[in-house]
Structures are given as structure tokens and as C-alpha cells.
């Protein structure tokens, strides 16, 4: 299959180009904010989607963002480490927690897994919200978290909107390389089989538990990275940033985009991310519209937007073969 290697490279190149070129079209602070958030959400939804391809709906995904955020914030403010170190430490801590939580949660599957991951997410949120208040700030959260210090070695300041955007973009592109590579490798090929028929996959030599755990830990590592970035760009941290609301939004982006392909969440996050900005002015109507869109998509296009072109193509091809068959039939009729 000659084009198999080309597609991911082309897709990635397009993403990277679009991301890098964006500031050429606008330097508006608000636009850059939206783009930065979008890049962060893209990292999160791509990871979530990798997990969903194995059949897991991981409601605790956002919790690992929170773990990364609190880890980095505390290491910078209390221990005095540099952001450039805590960024990776936060990712590591999130990954380590993911190994623990994942090993427990992945013992069950289906709706039970969804519920246990939801329980874990609430435990984490309540933990940060109510316990060790002098460390985590309690219900008021943490404030005054410093922006990243200038990039060591190059001495580049990373405090402005533009620099922060590029930082998040680079982090996202790094994550995207990993996710796209995996998707087009045996790892990605096998991941979806776990969702389709996990017993068959297991008897064919796939260690289903380990595979699921790998997707869980990888997604959580990237989430931890995103969390560290989030806390130092926003400078305030509150446990509601990692609660059900933002998690559901991630699920919506991923599902509406489509979980069947690594590009699904890209489509969903970008399109809906833009839509949300327009809808925001509508106040409560925003939630209403999003909810309606989610329901309609799941009822009529459950495979998401990314699957629509394929479906249309198949419908057209089916109609063409039917026409051809009829034509042959007419020719053979006595």
C-alpha cells in the first residue's frame, strides 16, 4: 500500500503548517488565547481518543491534567524549581499515578470502567479541593503561580501570548507525532481490535490489559504535560478546572469529531472549539446548542464527522454498483 506512509505525514505537515502560520494572520490576544487553548485541547482529545479506540471511556482523563498542574505549580512555587524542569516532572508524576489508577480501573470494562473512572476523577477533584488546604489551596485554589522563566540556554522570554502559543503548539506537535505514529503502526491496528472483539484479540496474542494500560498511561502523560502548561499560563488553579464540566467537553469534542480515526478529534476540537467561541455570546443557549448537537450526532452519525465522507463515498459506490447490476440485468432479460 504505497500511500499508507504518506497520509500521516501529509496530515501532520498540514497541522504543523497551519499552527505555525496562524500568527501571520492574527496577533490579536483573544485569538491567540483561543488558539492556545485549542492546541492544549487537541493534545487532550487525541489522547482520549487513543483510549476510546480500545473501548475505554476514561472520565478521569482530565484528572491527570490536574495532577500535572498541581505538581508543577507546587514544585515551582514551594521548591523553586524551574518550569522547564517541572514540565517534565509533572508529566512523569501524572504517568506514575496513571500506572497505579489504570492498573486498578482497567480490571473492569464497559460501563463499569466508565463509572469507576468517573469515581476516580471525583476522588481526585475532591482531594485537591478539600484536603491539605495549605498545600493545594482548598476551595479557593492556588493563585499567583508564575509564568515560565526564560528558556534556558537561549534566554528567550516565554511570557507573552505569542510565545506561550508557540510553546503549547510545540508540545502539541510533539504529542501529535507520537499519536499519529502509533495510529499507523501495529499498536494502533491492534488497539481498535480490543474494542471490536477483545477476547479474539487476546487469543491472537494481544495482551489486552497491557495494551489498554499503555494507552491509559500515554494519554495521562500528555495530559500531565498539558496541565503543567495550563497552570503556568493561567497563573491560577482551581479544582473545578478538572471536574466533570471540562471533561464532558473533551468527550464531546472527541466523539463528535469521530473516534474511528486519529484525525477525528482534530476535526472535532477545532470545529467545535471555534463554534464554542461564537456560541459563548449566547450564554445559556451555548450549553443548549452543544447538548443538542451532541445528541443529534450520536443518534444520526455516531461515528462522528470524520466518518461522514467515507459513508457518503460508500453510499455513492453502492448506488453505482446497483445501477450497473440493473443495467446488466436489463441486457440479459429475455
Amino acid at each position, binding site marked *: 500500500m504505497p500511500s499508507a506512509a504518506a497520509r500521516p505525514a501529509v496530515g501532520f505537515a498540514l497541522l504543523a503548517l497551519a499552527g505555525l502560520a496562524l500568527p501571520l494572520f492574527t496577533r490579536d490576544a483573544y485569538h491567540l488565547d483561543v488558539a492556545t487553548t485549542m492546541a492544549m485541547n487537541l493534545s487532550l482529545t487525541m489522547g482520549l481518543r487513543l483510549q476510546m479506540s480500545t473501548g475505554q471511556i476514561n472520565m478521569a482523563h482530565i484528572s491527570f491534567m490536574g495532577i500535572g498542574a498541581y505538581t508543577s505549580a507546587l514544585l515551582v512555587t514551594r521548591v523553586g524549581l524551574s518550569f522547564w524542569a517541572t514540565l517534565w516532572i509533572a508529566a512523569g508524576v501524572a504517568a506514575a499515578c496513571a500506572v497505579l489508577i489504570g492498573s486498578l480501573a482497567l480490571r473492569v470494562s464497559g460501563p463499569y470502567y466508565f463509572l469507576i473512572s468517573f469515581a476516580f476523577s471525583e476522588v481526585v477533584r475532591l482531594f485537591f479541593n478539600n484536603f491539605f488546604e495549605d498545600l493545594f489551596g482548598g476551595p479557593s485554589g492556588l493563585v499567583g503561580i508564575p509564568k515560565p522563566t526564560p528558556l534556558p540556554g537561549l534566554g528567550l522570554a516565554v511570557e507573552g501570548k505569542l510565545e506561550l502559543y508557540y510553546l503549547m503548539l510545540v508540545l502539541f506537535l510533539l504529542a501529535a507525532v*507520537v499519536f499519529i*505514529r*502509533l495510529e499507523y*503502526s*501495529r*499498536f*494502533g*491496528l*491492534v488497539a*481498535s*481490535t480490543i474494542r*471490536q*472483539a477483545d*477476547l*479474539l*484479540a*487476546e*487469543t*491472537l*496474542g*494481544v*495482551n*489486552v490489559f497491557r495494551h489498554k494500560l*499503555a494507552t491509559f498511561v*500515554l494519554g495521562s502523560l500528555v495530559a500531565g504535560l498539558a496541565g503543567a502548561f495550563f497552570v503556568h499560563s493561567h497563573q491560577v488553579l482551581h479544582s473545578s478546572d478538572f471536574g466533570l464540566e471540562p471533561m464532558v467537553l473533551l468527550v464531546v469534542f472527541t466523539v463528535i469529531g469521530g473516534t474511528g480515526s486519529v484525525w477525528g478529534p482534530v476535526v472535532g476540537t477545532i470545529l467545535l472549539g471555534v463554534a464554542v467561541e461564537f456560541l459563548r455570546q449566547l450564554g445559556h443557549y451555548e450549553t443548549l446548542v452543544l447538548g443538542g448537537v451532541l445528541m443529534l450526532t450520536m443518534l444520526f452519525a455516531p461515528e462522528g464527522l470524520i466518518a461522514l465522507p467515507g459513508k457518503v463515498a460508500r453510499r455513492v459506490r453502492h448506488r453505482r454498483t446497483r445501477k450497473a447490476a440493473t443495467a446488466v440485468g436489463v441486457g440479459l432479460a429475455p
Partner: protein
Amino acid sequence: MAVSDLSMSVIKGTIHGLIGPNGAGKSTVFNLIPGVLPLTQGEIRFKGERISGLRPSEVCRRGIARTFQATTLFREYTVFQNVLVAAHRLAAPGLGSALVWSRTYRGREQAARERARTLLAALNLAAVADEVAGSLPHRDQKALVLAMALATGAELVILDEPMAGLAAQEKDATTEALRGLRREGLTILLVEHDMRAVMGVCDTITVLDHGVRIAEGTPREIQENPAVIEAYLGVEDPGA
């Protein structure tokens, strides 16, 4: 149905049949060997090593493949993709090499793809290689299931009703295919209800009834064994 008393050996390079009336425990045996069901008593050994207690992916790794009764396939994937996945035992890298696409990874993937193509050609599936597995007619699905079991490169292949739902011609083709596999050195254990096919292709047959082994031997010996006849006739004709 529980299996309570079974002692069975499958000899390398032979085709071994497992038969018995409905509910005899044949499916249970087929689930115990790959580790899908846990063994509560006794043990299972393969090539001299104990495999009972291992998870199914480990059992596959050791060299045992199985098919499922209902044609269990990856229905959303194409025929080619199904066989490619099944070659996992021979290809399987870890997360690391899947990320880096090292030379070893690429070499093994290439080998897996070639193996898949060869198998599809051998089983007359090359024409439908890009069709979605869920849309195939029954006989092609059966062939695909066999192709996947062979793709693992396992030395022992356990087939669960390979002839079910096939027309007479197709059954003969399958029988020929099995003989060919035996010639290549594969060991086959199968469960089947079609007695003609079983007697025609198996070297040894074990008969199970109500979870207990009641006979074992060549097809001729089994056909003449009174306990076997009674087990089958007893079910059909209780008043006789």
C-alpha cells in the same frame, strides 16, 4: 457444562477430533486450553511445559491458536486487516519500536504483510481482501477465521466447528485444506458435528459425554465402540 474427567493427549502432526453429543463439554475444553476459562483441577501441558493458568495471549505466544464457534471476527476491519492483526504473534513489537519504526519493526511488519497475502491467496480470499469482514458470505468468513488461526504461526491449531454451515462442496474443500496443513507439519485439534467429515480426516478421535471421556481411538475403533453408539443413540432415541 463442566468437564469432570478428561485425560487427552494430542500427538504432534496429527489431526485429532473431539466429538460428543450436545452439552458434552467440548466447548468447555476449547475454552480451557487457551486459558479463556480457568482450570480448577488438573493441568494442561504443551510441548512439555505447563500452560494452564496462563492468560490467553501467553498461550498463543507459546504456539496455540484457536477459532471460535460463532464466526468471531473484527467485523469493522477488512479481510486483509484481520489477517494482519492475527499475525501479531510473529510481529508484535512493544510500544517503543511501534513508535520509532525501527528496522526490526519494519522488517517484521513487511513479513507479516507478505504472510497475510500468501495465506489469503491459499484460502481463495485474495479477491475479497479489501472487503469489510462483516459483509462477507458465511463460507468466506469461515475461511477467514482459518486464515487468521494460521497467520499466528502456531504449531497447534484448535478449530471450533470448522464445517458448520458449509455446503458439501465447501466441506470437502476444507477437509482437503486440513490434510494439506497436516502434511506441512501442523497439529490440528477440532470439534465437529459432521461425522462423515470427522471420520474422514481425523487420525485420532476422543469422545466426550457429560463431561467425561468415554472413548478414544482411530475412527474405525470409535465407530465400532458400543459406548459411543449408545451415547449418541441414547440422546436421539430414549425409548428404543
